[in-house]
């Protein structure tokens, strides 16, 4: 079969991994529309919106306290770079968006660091970006953390706490997305 040998060389794609946590994630089904572990391929010109309104947002949260559009992520290319970079923008008039220690107000935006904590209300997102060659597409992947991602969390002190409590969880969790039933208690 020569098609494998003759095909265009595959390019790697920029990948954004988002590990999320909310203290009420089991009781309230806020992440029920998120397909955890699924790698989604999106065009690089896409403005990815996160919020409550499923008509506007790409990723939605079932939570009345979330703004219709809470924040957005978009790719751009820096002038002397061959890879794509992310920009994060607060789209909420009500709630600040905290990126590591920086606070973004409505319509403020900033470059997303390679690895950072994004927070609004009680939502926590650990964002981790891997560079890729492709300028046409990028990938996203959501991971659900069963525990808080914040270092200062005083979760049972007798158990060792991994720094962000996520890496080891990738292997211990099943490969199918976590389903959350509204009635689960």
């Amino acid at each position, binding site marked *: 079969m020569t098609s494998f040998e003759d095909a265009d060389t595959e390019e790697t794609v920029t990948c954004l991994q988002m590990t999320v946590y909310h203290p009420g994630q089991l009781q309230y089904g806020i992440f029920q529309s998120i397909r955890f572990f699924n790698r989604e391929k999106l065009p690089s010109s896409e403005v990815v919106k996160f919020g409550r309104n499923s008509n506007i947002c790409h990723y939605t949260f079932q939570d009345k306290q979330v703004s219709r559009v809470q924040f957005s992520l978009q790719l751009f290319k820096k002038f002397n770079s061959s890879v794509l970079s992310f920009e994060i923008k607060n789209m909420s008039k009500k709630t600040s968006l905290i990126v590591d220690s920086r606070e973004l107000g409505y319509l*403020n935006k900033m470059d997303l660091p390679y690895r950072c904590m994004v927070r609004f209300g009680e939502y926590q997102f650990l964002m981790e970006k891997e560079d890729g060659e492709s300028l046409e597409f990028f990938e996203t992947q959501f991971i659900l953390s069963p525990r808080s991602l914040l270092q200062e969390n005083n979760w049972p002190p007798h158990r060792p706490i991994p720094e962000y409590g996520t890496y080891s969880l990738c292997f211990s969790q099943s490969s199918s997305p976590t389903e959350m039933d509204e009635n689960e208690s």
Partner: protein
Amino acid sequence: MEKPLTVLRVSLYHPTLGPSAFANVPPRLQHDTSPLLLGRGQDAHLQMQLPRLSRHHLSLEPYLEKGSALLAFCLKALSRKGCVWVNGLTLRYLEQVPLSTVNRVSFSGIQMLVRVEEGTSLEAFVCYFHVSPSPLIYRSEAEETDEWEGISQEQPPPGSEQ
């Protein structure tokens, strides 16, 4: 009382096609705080019928600088084939630059002058368009180096769909 809208005063010029290049451009366009898309495509907010123009050629994205209450704009190139020249800078696909108070923009043979008049509304902004009978940018300043250079302006390049 409603806050005054930020105004973009846009002058447009095309050296060979003249005003007919801008037949679909309304005199006034109000837009919310989402990015305003300019291109040949039906879904562009500002549509221009030109063969060398990409379906989505560029976007104007409103945002707020930290500490400012006045709307700022970021111009982003969305064309894979053509580039966008802005105030002396050539932007290629996904490159972007913040707009100044007065901006000279050139792409696909179009010359555009954009003046930003500050307003305090964070809900929307408004564009006023004017077609200029004479050039807006000195040719020597705007060096376009996109893939279509060298091909006569009357002929669209082969396979011009992105």
